[in-house]
């Protein structure tokens, strides 16, 4: 099989490439008298020596970073099946609109009259996201998914406080397959996080839910489809039960890519949902962020949303509204990560209503095809998921000693990033695989071929797998030591 070539050698750091006096541009001496920096800045704030910036000609700088990018794995290079992360291709038109001069130069203190285009874009986005959610109001402020969750849980608190239940409703429920951020968020907001077991099919155990529900429950956080990729087919009953107990339903929108345009969280009974624009709406993430985690709510929770709210005025202009006395406050500097909103707006506008739905359908179809190629080679403890499937290497490990981590490392030799490994926690030796809708049939087949070759290799030559990777510039890294003795700072020789 053709392998994706990595540049073989280890790239020196940019500091090591520096040579005194080299430069990309020559700036002539100024012929205007200007005060020295000493006259402009108090001595206490001046550094004693100039910073040791690398001195390198422009082409060498470009080559340096191009080489580094070739060693990296990214969606512009090949399929990136990181389950639950929705590593879809990020269309370049998103970057073009985000770099529009008017948006790039816009200052957050610009009077609203001078920022109508930006406000209209934000307003559009709230309307479109509300439509996908099947809910009435949206805040764009949260910086990413975890802050979206925080918003959701703070909304629960504000809601119960407004009804006089704030003191007694102290519990937030979540299933054992949940992302760790769900219980962490509930705990950070001062709630007790209560874990519920999943049933044999990997879904919420309704009986366990009934037992956990009482008037101390503030709400439940539930991803749908859940972290095993399974649609919570009892979702209407789950929402009814939680509502009857006086709680609110929060949907973690991590897996919305499987549902958008097809089924609306609001219709299922959810009260709150967050979006990961950096997953579902194709804005860059995984080192290329920042993220954006808007939150949609039904109208009974709208008064508590963070300020300012983006509104359309009676005269058709757009504005920011601060006078919301029941709001729980402010969540993010200014209005959220605006550049990400421009990219998401562009993506949604390019797709349109049909395209949004088609995206969800193709993400499920792609995963169904990939799963059909792999399911005879890897176990699938909970069966095929919607947009992602969680495979397990348990049997391979028992037979051959090859672990999921070894398979993940071996995939690098084939030019692929690994799936999410060892998560969710209720699947041992998990390989959580999400191909996304942006892969062609051939791309899915190439990935499946690599996975199957590795499964065969585990039987015939296990050592080849347990010692992987072989073809990368560096071999197996000591991840334990990297975590224990993290050191990312370059030390100049003269500092030794």
């Amino acid at each position, binding site marked *: 099989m053709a392998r994706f070539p990595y540049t073989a050698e280890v790239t020196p750091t940019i500091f090591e490439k520096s040579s005194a006096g080299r430069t990309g541009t020559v700036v002539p001496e100024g012929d205007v008298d200007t005060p020295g920096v000493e006259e402009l800045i108090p001595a206490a704030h001046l550094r004693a020596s100039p910073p040791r910036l690398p001195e390198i000609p422009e082409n060498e700088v470009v080559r340096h970073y191009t080489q580094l990018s070739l060693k990296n794995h990214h969606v512009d290079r090949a399929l990136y099946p990181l389950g639950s992360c929705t590593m879809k291709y990020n269309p370049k038109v998103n970057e073009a609109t985000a770099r529009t001069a008017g948006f790039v130069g816009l200052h957050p203190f610009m009077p609203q009259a001078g920022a109508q285009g930006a406000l209209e874009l934000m307003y559009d986005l709230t309307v479109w996201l509300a439509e996908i959610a099947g809910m009435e109001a949206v805040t764009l402020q949260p910086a990413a998914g975890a802050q979206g969750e925080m918003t959701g849980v703070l909304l629960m608190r504000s809601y119960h406080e407004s009804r006089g239940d704030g003191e007694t409703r102290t519990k937030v429920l979540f299933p054992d397959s949940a992302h760790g951020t769900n219980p962490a968020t509930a705990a950070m907001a001062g709630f007790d996080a209560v874990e519920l077991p999943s049933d044999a099919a990997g879904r919420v155990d309704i009986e366990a839910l009934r037992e956990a529900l009482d008037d101390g429950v503030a709400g439940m956080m539930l991803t749908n489809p859940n972290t095993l990729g399974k649609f919570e087919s009892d979702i209407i009953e789950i929402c009814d039960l939680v509502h009857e107990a006086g709680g609110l339903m929060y949907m973690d929108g991590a897996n919305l890519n499987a549902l958008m345009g097809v089924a609306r969280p609001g219709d299922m009974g959810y009260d709150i949902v967050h979006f990961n624009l950096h997953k579902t709406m194709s804005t860059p993430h995984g080192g290329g962020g920042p993220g954006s985690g808007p939150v949609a709510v039904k109208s009974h929770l709208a008064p508590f949303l963070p300020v300012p709210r983006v509104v359309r005025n009676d005269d058709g202009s757009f504005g920011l509204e601060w006078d919301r006395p029941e709001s729980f406050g402010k969540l993010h500097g200014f209005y959220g990560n605006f550049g990400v909103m421009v990219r998401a707006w562009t993506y949604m506008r390019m797709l349109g209503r049909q395209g949004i739905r088609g995206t969800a359908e193709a993400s499920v179809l792609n995963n169904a095809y990939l799963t059909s190629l792999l399911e005879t080679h890897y176990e699938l403890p909970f069966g095929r998921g919607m947009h992602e499937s969680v495979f397990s290497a348990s049997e391979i490990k028992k037979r051959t000693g090859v672990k999921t*981590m070894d398979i993940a490392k071996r995939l690098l030799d084939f030019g692929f990033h690994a799936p999410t*490994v*060892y*998560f969710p*926690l209720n699947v041992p030796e998990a390989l959580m695989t999400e191909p996304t809708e942006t892969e062609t049939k051939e791309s899915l087949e190439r990935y499946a071929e690599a996975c199957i070759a590795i499964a065969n290799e585990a039987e015939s030559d296990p050592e080849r797998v347990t010692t992987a990777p072989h073809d990368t510039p560096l071999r197996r890294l*000591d*991840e*334990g*030591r990297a*975590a*224990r003795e993290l050191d990312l700072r370059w030390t100049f020789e003269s500092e030794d």
Partner: protein
Amino acid sequence: MSEIPDGLKYTEEHEYVRETDSENEFLVGVTDYAQGELGDVVFVELPAAGDTFGRMDVFGTIEAVKAVSDLFSPLTGEIVAINEALGEDPALVNSDPYGEGWMVRIRATDPSEIDGLLSAADYAEHVDA
């Protein structure tokens, strides 16, 4: 296969309990199987001497490259010492789980609880299941 020494007691959550020379005092750590499943341990969060725990209360956490897991107290009692060496070198849990990788020394308030723990044979069966 992971090592499961006879003479120790075990929990289903993969802690072991070792008797000491002092009456009612026990050393607690995680098993060889547990460290193998976790992979490289990068941090162990332990309680302070004097803290008390009920049986199967969470007494600390263990962080590996793969995941963070809770540590459960096999017995009801008071922590009389912790393994300070793990602060400097958490990898001792990987290299010598039953020796230098011990975690806490606990004074049991109800030593009869030890009878409720798994024997080496029971634990081997539990791990194999």
